[in-house]
């Protein structure tokens, strides 16, 4: 059974205070699950290839029992694992958002005025310098993110990296219990 290193709680509290509860839950879940053996890329590639072929899948009928158990993340590795997880997770999300907004701008700029005679005309207001803004909508309202916002957030990433590195060094020097 996985045991949560109490030093990680400090980071979890910080995530919650920064309104990143979902990331705190992911950290706890990641430690709870431990490290599972991965399916090799060769097996995944073979599966993709088989799916794209027209071959009828054959019932194998012989159960393949997986004997490998998940390996818990050792307590003395959890601090570094957690810091790396937070940094990588946010960095990936910002990188994906930046790429997405660039593609959305590209698509809009390449859109011709009327795709089809049946298309509903819109009130075009002439050329604008405005980029596409992502809006996440729910009952609480709208959360807007533009390319400038993403660039601003990414500019601050080195500060996050340094702060996490400093915490990792400090936490490593503390006793685990």
């Amino acid at each position, binding site marked *: 059974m996985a045991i949560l290193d109490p030093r990680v709680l400090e980071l979890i509290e910080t995530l919650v205070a920064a309104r990143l509860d979902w990331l705190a839950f992911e950290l706890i879940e990641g430690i709870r699950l431990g490290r599972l053996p991965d*399916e090799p890329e060769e097996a995944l590639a073979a599966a993709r290839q088989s799916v*794209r072929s027209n071959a009828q899948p054959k019932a194998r009928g012989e159960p393949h029992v997986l004997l490998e158990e998940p390996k818990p993340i050792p307590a003395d590795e959890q601090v570094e694992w957690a810091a790396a997880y937070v940094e990588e997770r946010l960095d990936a999300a910002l990188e994906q958002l930046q790429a997405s907004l660039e593609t959305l701008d590209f698509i*809009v700029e390449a859109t*011709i005025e009327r795709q089809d005679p049946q298309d509903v005309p819109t009130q075009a207001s002439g050329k*604008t310098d405005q980029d596409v803004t992502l809006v996440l909508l729910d009952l609480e309202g709208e959360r807007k993110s533009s390319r400038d916002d993403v660039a601003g957030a990414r500019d601050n990433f080195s500060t996050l990296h340094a702060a996490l590195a400093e915490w990792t060094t400090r936490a490593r020097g503390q006793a685990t219990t």
Partner: protein
Amino acid sequence: MIPAVQTALNTIVGRVTTLDHASGAGRIFELFVMTSLARGLRDAGFSVWLQRSDGTIIHPGDADRRFIQRGGAPTGVSAASAGPSNATVIGFRWGRRRKWEIWNGIQFAGRSAATHEIDISIVPGSVGTEIRKAGGIPVGRPRVAIECKDVGTSGSVDEMRAFIARLYDVTLLHAHHRHMHFPDARALHPGSPNEPKHRAIVTYWQENRRTKNIIARRTGFTAGTAPLGEYHRVEPHRDISVGSSTVDELVSSVVNWAGRNA
């Protein structure tokens, strides 16, 4: 609390508020996959456009250039009469052929009457046009279904099993229509074209083969998932990240499907 980490996080989340939403990062990953598909289709020669929830297209000169994703509880398609402030879709077509739509986070109803959110789905444009007349939940199976997972842990056999179960519930075979109220036996209602490739088919195997079904993950899959996916015709794609060759393979798979079917 770690004050320096909190200050840095506050600055990042303050700039990109999408990140403080419970499903914000997940929606960003879905948007990344969705826009990568759109870019791939465009590069392959398809016309591609962004379409507001009222059916209007976003043009270069428009002041309203919002791309709206829904972040709350999963839902169906909004009525066009509700205006342009609901979920945006991406449209595409080859030449003067039929239009298609790429949807994000829409629920589909299955034979059991349960509803299932499909992270990214591709449906005929006529289905979108028909359902936007009054809004609602489509019944049946999208022609392309992509489950997106951006969490750091590897995808389990349970995750694959859950996706397959969803696909089976939304599959409408010809025989199922004996017990359903639809006037014609189609794979997806309402609005599917009256063409052989959109009519309900006889076996699950045929429906699995003529649709495209994918799990796209930011990380990997645990051992044992590949045989399960392969048998039920679900392509497992791992390590989906910006600029990677794995994205290219995922996009190529869908673009090839579109080239044959759209």
